[in-house]
Protein backbone atom coordinates (compact mmCIF):
# COMPACT_ATOMS: atom_id res chain seq x y z
CA UNK A 1 0.00 0.00 0.00
CA UNK A 2 1.22 3.48 -0.86
CA UNK A 3 1.20 6.48 1.41
CA UNK A 4 2.34 9.88 0.19
CA UNK A 5 4.81 11.58 2.51
CA UNK A 6 5.31 15.33 2.08
CA UNK A 7 8.78 16.50 3.01
CA UNK A 8 9.63 20.04 4.18
CA UNK A 9 12.43 21.96 2.44
CA UNK A 10 14.77 21.52 5.38
CA UNK A 11 14.66 17.71 5.03
CA UNK A 12 14.74 17.49 1.22
CA UNK A 13 18.50 16.88 1.11
CA UNK A 14 17.57 13.37 2.33
CA UNK A 15 15.09 12.82 -0.52
CA UNK A 16 17.25 14.15 -3.36
CA UNK A 17 15.17 17.30 -3.30
CA UNK A 18 11.82 15.54 -3.70
CA UNK A 19 8.87 17.39 -2.14
CA UNK A 20 6.93 14.17 -1.71
CA UNK A 21 7.88 10.48 -1.66
CA UNK A 22 5.85 7.29 -1.43
CA UNK A 23 6.34 4.91 1.47
CA UNK A 24 4.65 1.99 3.16
CA UNK A 25 3.69 0.93 6.66
CA UNK A 26 0.72 -0.04 8.80
CA UNK A 27 1.75 2.51 11.43
CA UNK A 28 3.67 5.77 11.41
CA UNK A 29 6.61 3.96 13.03
CA UNK A 30 6.70 1.40 10.21
CA UNK A 31 6.37 4.16 7.64
CA UNK A 32 9.36 6.02 9.06
CA UNK A 33 11.33 2.76 9.09
CA UNK A 34 10.47 2.24 5.43
CA UNK A 35 11.52 5.82 4.63
CA UNK A 36 14.85 5.27 6.41
CA UNK A 37 15.61 2.23 4.24
CA UNK A 38 15.54 4.39 1.11
CA UNK A 39 16.48 7.79 2.55
CA UNK A 40 19.09 7.07 5.23
CA UNK A 41 19.35 9.70 7.95
CA UNK A 42 15.73 10.81 7.76
CA UNK A 43 14.59 8.74 10.74
CA UNK A 44 16.99 10.42 13.13
CA UNK A 45 15.63 13.81 12.09
CA UNK A 46 12.08 12.73 12.95
CA UNK A 47 12.45 10.41 15.93
CA UNK A 48 14.50 10.64 19.09
CA UNK A 49 14.48 8.03 21.86
CA UNK A 50 11.36 6.33 20.57
CA UNK A 51 9.22 9.46 20.22
CA UNK A 52 8.66 12.18 17.65
CA UNK A 53 11.18 14.97 18.00
CA UNK A 54 9.93 18.05 19.81
CA UNK A 55 10.35 20.45 16.92
CA UNK A 56 8.85 18.18 14.28
CA UNK A 57 5.13 18.00 13.58
CA UNK A 58 3.67 15.10 11.64
CA UNK A 59 0.16 15.20 10.24
CA UNK A 60 -1.98 12.34 8.96
CA UNK A 61 -4.44 13.76 6.43
CA UNK A 62 -3.69 17.16 8.04
CA UNK A 63 -4.48 15.88 11.57
CA UNK A 64 -1.70 16.15 14.19
CA UNK A 65 -0.54 12.60 14.99
CA UNK A 66 0.22 13.63 18.57
CA UNK A 67 -3.56 13.63 19.09
CA UNK A 68 -4.01 10.35 17.22
CA UNK A 69 -1.51 7.89 18.67
CA UNK A 70 1.94 9.30 17.94
CA UNK A 71 4.25 6.77 16.29
CA UNK A 72 1.62 4.04 16.81
CA UNK A 73 -0.93 5.91 14.65
CA UNK A 74 -2.40 3.42 12.18
CA UNK A 75 -2.18 4.28 8.48
CA UNK A 76 -4.30 3.26 5.50
CA UNK A 77 -3.74 3.06 1.77
CA UNK A 78 -4.17 6.48 0.17
CA UNK A 79 -3.35 8.47 3.31
CA UNK A 80 -1.15 11.54 3.14
CA UNK A 81 1.48 12.17 5.79
CA UNK A 82 2.90 15.69 6.07
CA UNK A 83 6.10 16.48 7.95
CA UNK A 84 6.62 20.07 9.07
CA UNK A 85 9.08 21.88 11.28
CA UNK A 86 7.19 22.96 14.42
CA UNK A 87 7.42 26.71 14.68
CA UNK A 88 4.48 29.03 14.19
CA UNK A 89 1.33 28.49 16.18
CA UNK A 90 3.22 27.15 19.15
CA UNK A 91 2.32 23.48 18.85
CA UNK A 92 4.26 22.75 21.99
Amino acid at each position, binding site marked *: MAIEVRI*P*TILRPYTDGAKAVDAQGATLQELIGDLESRHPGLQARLVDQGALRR*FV*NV*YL*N*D*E*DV*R*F*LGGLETPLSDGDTV*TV*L*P*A*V*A*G*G*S*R
Partner: protein
Amino acid sequence: MRFESLIDSVGRTPLVGLPRLSPSEDVRVWAKLEDRNPTGSIKDRPALWMIEQAEKDGLLRPGCTILEPTSGNTGISLAMSAKLKGYKLICVMPENTSEERRQLLRMWGAEIISSPAAGGSNEAVRVAKGLAAENPSWVMLYQYGNPANWRSHYETTGPEILADLPTVTHFVAGLGTTGTLMGVGRFLREQLPDVKIVAAEPRYGELVYGLRNVDEGFIPELYDPEVLTTRFSVSSGDALRRTRELLAAEGIFAGVSTGAALHAALGMAAKAVKAGERADIVFVVADGGWKYLSTGAYEGTLDEAEERLEGQLWA
Protein backbone atom coordinates in the same frame (compact mmCIF):
# COMPACT_ATOMS: atom_id res chain seq x y z
CA MET B 1 -35.77 40.97 16.66
CA ARG B 2 -35.51 44.30 18.40
CA PHE B 3 -32.54 45.59 20.44
CA GLU B 4 -31.89 48.74 22.48
CA SER B 5 -28.59 49.39 20.68
CA LEU B 6 -26.16 47.76 18.27
CA ILE B 7 -24.09 46.39 21.17
CA ASP B 8 -27.13 44.54 22.47
CA SER B 9 -27.47 42.68 19.17
CA VAL B 10 -24.19 40.74 19.51
CA GLY B 11 -24.60 36.95 19.23
CA ARG B 12 -27.66 34.73 18.65
CA THR B 13 -26.36 33.90 15.18
CA PRO B 14 -27.94 31.35 12.81
CA LEU B 15 -26.81 27.74 12.60
CA VAL B 16 -27.36 26.48 9.06
CA GLY B 17 -27.03 23.01 7.60
CA LEU B 18 -24.85 22.19 4.60
CA PRO B 19 -27.01 19.71 2.69
CA ARG B 20 -24.65 19.54 -0.30
CA LEU B 21 -21.31 19.29 1.51
CA SER B 22 -22.53 16.88 4.22
CA PRO B 23 -21.46 13.36 3.24
CA SER B 24 -24.68 11.56 4.27
CA GLU B 25 -27.93 11.87 6.22
CA ASP B 26 -26.17 10.45 9.28
CA VAL B 27 -23.10 12.65 9.01
CA ARG B 28 -24.14 16.25 8.80
CA VAL B 29 -22.12 19.46 8.78
CA TRP B 30 -23.50 22.73 10.16
CA ALA B 31 -22.19 26.29 9.85
CA LYS B 32 -22.42 28.75 12.75
CA LEU B 33 -22.70 32.06 10.92
CA GLU B 34 -20.65 34.39 13.10
CA ASP B 35 -20.36 36.87 10.25
CA ARG B 36 -23.91 37.87 11.26
CA ASN B 37 -22.60 39.81 14.25
CA PRO B 38 -22.73 43.65 14.24
CA THR B 39 -19.24 44.22 12.79
CA GLY B 40 -19.25 41.02 10.76
CA SER B 41 -17.15 38.63 12.82
CA ILE B 42 -17.16 36.30 15.81
CA LYS B 43 -14.86 38.75 17.61
CA ASP B 44 -17.79 40.96 18.58
CA ARG B 45 -18.46 38.47 21.38
CA PRO B 46 -15.06 38.48 23.15
CA ALA B 47 -14.51 42.18 22.45
CA LEU B 48 -17.72 43.16 24.20
CA TRP B 49 -17.15 40.76 27.10
CA MET B 50 -13.57 41.94 27.64
CA ILE B 51 -14.64 45.60 27.67
CA GLU B 52 -17.56 45.00 30.02
CA GLN B 53 -15.43 42.89 32.37
CA ALA B 54 -12.81 45.68 32.47
CA GLU B 55 -15.60 48.15 33.27
CA LYS B 56 -16.82 45.92 36.11
CA ASP B 57 -13.26 45.61 37.41
CA GLY B 58 -12.90 49.40 37.39
CA LEU B 59 -10.03 49.32 34.86
CA LEU B 60 -11.94 51.18 32.16
CA ARG B 61 -13.55 54.57 32.69
CA PRO B 62 -14.92 56.92 29.99
CA GLY B 63 -12.06 58.59 28.13
CA CYS B 64 -9.63 55.72 28.71
CA THR B 65 -7.35 54.43 25.93
CA ILE B 66 -7.52 50.74 25.00
CA LEU B 67 -4.49 49.08 23.40
CA GLU B 68 -4.72 45.72 21.64
CA PRO B 69 -2.56 43.51 19.39
CA THR B 70 -4.89 42.28 16.66
CA SER B 71 -4.71 41.05 13.09
CA GLY B 72 -7.99 42.82 12.43
CA ASN B 73 -11.32 41.42 13.51
CA THR B 74 -10.88 41.91 17.25
CA GLY B 75 -9.72 45.44 16.56
CA ILE B 76 -12.77 46.17 14.43
CA SER B 77 -15.06 44.79 17.14
CA LEU B 78 -13.27 46.73 19.87
CA ALA B 79 -13.38 49.89 17.73
CA MET B 80 -17.17 49.66 17.42
CA SER B 81 -17.72 49.02 21.13
CA ALA B 82 -15.11 51.63 22.10
CA LYS B 83 -16.78 54.27 19.91
CA LEU B 84 -20.21 53.60 21.41
CA LYS B 85 -18.82 53.52 24.95
CA GLY B 86 -16.49 56.52 24.68
CA TYR B 87 -13.01 54.98 24.67
CA LYS B 88 -10.01 55.61 22.43
CA LEU B 89 -8.53 52.53 20.72
CA ILE B 90 -4.98 51.84 19.50
CA CYS B 91 -4.42 48.60 17.53
CA VAL B 92 -1.06 46.97 16.91
CA MET B 93 -1.29 44.85 13.77
CA PRO B 94 1.12 43.07 11.43
CA GLU B 95 1.83 45.15 8.33
CA ASN B 96 0.88 42.22 6.06
CA THR B 97 -2.82 42.19 6.97
CA SER B 98 -5.37 43.25 4.39
CA GLU B 99 -6.04 46.89 3.49
CA GLU B 100 -9.79 46.48 4.10
CA ARG B 101 -9.13 45.77 7.76
CA ARG B 102 -7.04 48.92 8.12
CA GLN B 103 -9.69 51.06 6.44
CA LEU B 104 -12.42 49.61 8.65
CA LEU B 105 -10.41 50.27 11.80
CA ARG B 106 -9.78 53.87 10.78
CA MET B 107 -13.47 54.33 9.92
CA TRP B 108 -14.47 53.39 13.45
CA GLY B 109 -11.86 55.81 14.78
CA ALA B 110 -9.05 53.49 15.83
CA GLU B 111 -5.38 54.38 15.57
CA ILE B 112 -3.15 51.72 13.96
CA ILE B 113 0.45 50.93 14.84
CA SER B 114 2.07 48.47 12.39
CA SER B 115 4.36 45.69 13.54
CA PRO B 116 6.82 43.94 11.18
CA ALA B 117 5.25 41.34 8.86
CA ALA B 118 7.99 38.82 9.58
CA GLY B 119 6.92 38.11 13.13
CA GLY B 120 3.20 37.81 12.40
CA SER B 121 0.79 38.03 15.30
CA ASN B 122 3.56 37.07 17.73
CA GLU B 123 5.45 40.23 16.89
CA ALA B 124 2.27 42.34 17.25
CA VAL B 125 1.85 40.92 20.76
CA ARG B 126 5.47 41.72 21.59
CA VAL B 127 5.18 45.31 20.31
CA ALA B 128 1.89 45.84 22.19
CA LYS B 129 3.35 44.53 25.44
CA GLY B 130 6.23 46.98 25.07
CA LEU B 131 3.86 49.90 24.44
CA ALA B 132 1.73 48.92 27.43
CA ALA B 133 4.80 48.95 29.66
CA GLU B 134 5.73 52.45 28.40
CA ASN B 135 2.18 53.80 28.81
CA PRO B 136 0.81 52.54 32.10
CA SER B 137 -2.43 54.52 31.74
CA TRP B 138 -3.41 52.55 28.62
CA VAL B 139 -5.55 49.48 29.15
CA MET B 140 -4.51 46.37 27.25
CA LEU B 141 -7.40 43.92 27.20
CA TYR B 142 -5.06 41.28 25.75
CA GLN B 143 -7.34 38.79 24.00
CA TYR B 144 -4.71 36.01 24.14
CA GLY B 145 -4.75 35.89 27.93
CA ASN B 146 -8.03 37.52 29.01
CA PRO B 147 -10.44 34.96 30.53
CA ALA B 148 -13.39 37.13 29.41
CA ASN B 149 -12.48 36.05 25.86
CA TRP B 150 -13.22 32.35 26.44
CA ARG B 151 -16.00 33.17 28.92
CA SER B 152 -17.89 34.99 26.15
CA HIS B 153 -18.04 31.73 24.19
CA TYR B 154 -18.74 29.63 27.29
CA GLU B 155 -21.71 31.86 28.14
CA THR B 156 -23.09 32.58 24.65
CA THR B 157 -21.71 30.68 21.61
CA GLY B 158 -21.71 27.28 23.31
CA PRO B 159 -25.23 27.48 24.76
CA GLU B 160 -26.58 28.75 21.42
CA ILE B 161 -25.14 25.72 19.61
CA LEU B 162 -26.48 23.23 22.16
CA ALA B 163 -29.94 24.83 22.09
CA ASP B 164 -30.10 24.73 18.29
CA LEU B 165 -28.53 21.27 17.87
CA PRO B 166 -28.74 19.07 21.00
CA THR B 167 -27.33 16.16 18.97
CA VAL B 168 -24.03 17.97 18.24
CA THR B 169 -21.05 15.56 18.23
CA HIS B 170 -18.20 17.78 17.01
CA PHE B 171 -17.26 21.44 17.30
CA VAL B 172 -14.63 22.80 14.91
CA ALA B 173 -13.08 26.27 14.95
CA GLY B 174 -9.93 28.08 13.97
CA LEU B 175 -7.09 28.23 16.48
CA GLY B 176 -5.95 31.80 17.06
CA THR B 177 -6.34 33.21 20.55
CA THR B 178 -7.92 29.79 21.29
CA GLY B 179 -10.82 31.59 23.04
CA THR B 180 -13.57 30.13 20.85
CA LEU B 181 -12.35 26.55 21.24
CA MET B 182 -11.67 26.88 24.98
CA GLY B 183 -15.04 28.49 25.75
CA VAL B 184 -17.34 26.47 23.51
CA GLY B 185 -15.27 23.35 24.20
CA ARG B 186 -15.57 23.60 27.98
CA PHE B 187 -19.27 24.35 27.83
CA LEU B 188 -20.15 21.54 25.44
CA ARG B 189 -18.01 18.96 27.23
CA GLU B 190 -19.75 19.69 30.53
CA GLN B 191 -23.07 19.00 28.84
CA LEU B 192 -21.96 16.26 26.42
CA PRO B 193 -18.87 14.46 27.74
CA ASP B 194 -18.20 12.66 24.44
CA VAL B 195 -18.25 15.75 22.25
CA LYS B 196 -15.16 16.18 20.07
CA ILE B 197 -13.46 19.59 20.08
CA VAL B 198 -11.40 20.12 16.94
CA ALA B 199 -8.92 22.90 16.18
CA ALA B 200 -8.02 24.06 12.66
CA GLU B 201 -4.77 25.96 12.60
CA PRO B 202 -3.37 27.80 9.60
CA ARG B 203 -0.30 26.31 7.94
CA TYR B 204 1.46 29.18 6.28
CA GLY B 205 3.91 28.82 3.43
CA GLU B 206 7.52 28.09 4.20
CA LEU B 207 8.25 31.67 3.21
CA VAL B 208 6.46 32.85 6.34
CA TYR B 209 8.00 30.11 8.50
CA GLY B 210 11.46 30.77 7.13
CA LEU B 211 11.39 34.31 8.45
CA ARG B 212 10.62 33.13 11.92
CA ASN B 213 12.67 31.75 14.72
CA VAL B 214 11.77 28.64 16.69
CA ASP B 215 12.02 30.67 19.90
CA GLU B 216 9.20 32.88 18.65
CA GLY B 217 6.67 30.04 18.86
CA PHE B 218 3.92 31.64 20.86
CA ILE B 219 1.30 29.81 22.90
CA PRO B 220 -1.63 31.99 24.04
CA GLU B 221 -2.09 31.99 27.80
CA LEU B 222 -5.70 30.89 27.27
CA TYR B 223 -4.65 27.66 25.54
CA ASP B 224 -5.31 24.42 27.41
CA PRO B 225 -4.58 21.42 25.19
CA GLU B 226 -6.77 19.21 27.42
CA VAL B 227 -9.86 20.87 25.95
CA LEU B 228 -9.00 19.73 22.42
CA THR B 229 -9.75 16.29 21.03
CA THR B 230 -7.57 16.85 18.01
CA ARG B 231 -5.89 19.45 15.89
CA PHE B 232 -5.66 19.98 12.12
CA SER B 233 -3.03 21.93 10.23
CA VAL B 234 -4.53 23.37 7.05
CA SER B 235 -2.49 24.70 4.14
CA SER B 236 -3.37 27.95 2.39
CA GLY B 237 -4.31 25.94 -0.71
CA ASP B 238 -6.79 23.71 1.15
CA ALA B 239 -8.26 26.68 3.04
CA LEU B 240 -8.82 28.52 -0.24
CA ARG B 241 -10.28 25.45 -1.96
CA ARG B 242 -12.77 24.88 0.87
CA THR B 243 -13.69 28.58 1.03
CA ARG B 244 -14.64 28.39 -2.65
CA GLU B 245 -16.50 25.09 -2.20
CA LEU B 246 -18.57 26.62 0.58
CA LEU B 247 -19.57 29.44 -1.76
CA ALA B 248 -20.14 27.25 -4.82
CA ALA B 249 -22.06 24.44 -3.09
CA GLU B 250 -23.88 26.19 -0.25
CA GLY B 251 -23.87 29.87 -1.19
CA ILE B 252 -21.96 30.96 1.91
CA PHE B 253 -19.43 33.74 1.24
CA ALA B 254 -16.86 33.39 4.00
CA GLY B 255 -13.33 34.48 4.84
CA VAL B 256 -10.34 32.23 4.21
CA SER B 257 -9.97 31.02 7.81
CA THR B 258 -13.48 29.56 7.52
CA GLY B 259 -12.20 27.39 4.68
CA ALA B 260 -9.62 25.97 7.09
CA ALA B 261 -12.31 25.16 9.67
CA LEU B 262 -14.47 23.55 6.97
CA HIS B 263 -11.49 21.46 5.84
CA ALA B 264 -11.09 20.08 9.36
CA ALA B 265 -14.87 19.58 9.69
CA LEU B 266 -14.96 17.57 6.46
CA GLY B 267 -11.91 15.60 7.64
CA MET B 268 -13.81 14.60 10.79
CA ALA B 269 -16.91 13.90 8.67
CA ALA B 270 -14.93 11.50 6.48
CA LYS B 271 -13.65 9.71 9.58
CA ALA B 272 -17.20 9.36 10.94
CA VAL B 273 -18.39 7.90 7.63
CA LYS B 274 -15.49 5.45 7.61
CA ALA B 275 -16.22 4.40 11.19
CA GLY B 276 -19.94 4.06 10.48
CA GLU B 277 -20.81 6.60 13.19
CA ARG B 278 -23.46 9.30 13.07
CA ALA B 279 -22.22 12.88 13.47
CA ASP B 280 -23.50 16.43 13.71
CA ILE B 281 -20.46 18.59 13.10
CA VAL B 282 -20.63 22.32 13.81
CA PHE B 283 -17.92 24.57 12.43
CA VAL B 284 -17.49 28.31 12.80
CA VAL B 285 -17.82 30.79 9.96
CA ALA B 286 -15.65 33.39 11.70
CA ASP B 287 -16.29 36.16 9.20
CA GLY B 288 -17.49 36.92 5.68
CA GLY B 289 -15.26 37.23 2.65
CA TRP B 290 -15.59 40.98 2.20
CA LYS B 291 -12.38 41.92 3.97
CA TYR B 292 -10.33 39.52 1.83
CA LEU B 293 -11.40 40.62 -1.67
CA SER B 294 -8.15 42.51 -2.17
CA THR B 295 -6.13 39.35 -1.46
CA GLY B 296 -7.46 37.87 -4.72
CA ALA B 297 -8.67 34.76 -2.88
CA TYR B 298 -11.86 34.51 -4.92
CA GLU B 299 -10.57 35.22 -8.42
CA GLY B 300 -8.75 33.18 -11.04
CA THR B 301 -7.50 29.62 -10.54
CA LEU B 302 -6.74 28.17 -7.12
CA ASP B 303 -3.04 28.13 -7.89
CA GLU B 304 -3.08 31.81 -8.79
CA ALA B 305 -5.03 32.67 -5.64
CA GLU B 306 -2.66 30.58 -3.51
CA GLU B 307 0.30 32.39 -5.00
CA ARG B 308 -1.27 35.76 -4.24
CA LEU B 309 -1.93 34.66 -0.67
CA GLU B 310 1.67 33.59 -0.13
CA GLY B 311 3.26 35.61 2.65
CA GLN B 312 -0.07 37.01 3.87
CA LEU B 313 -1.73 36.20 7.16
CA TRP B 314 -5.20 34.86 6.46
CA ALA B 315 -6.28 33.75 9.91
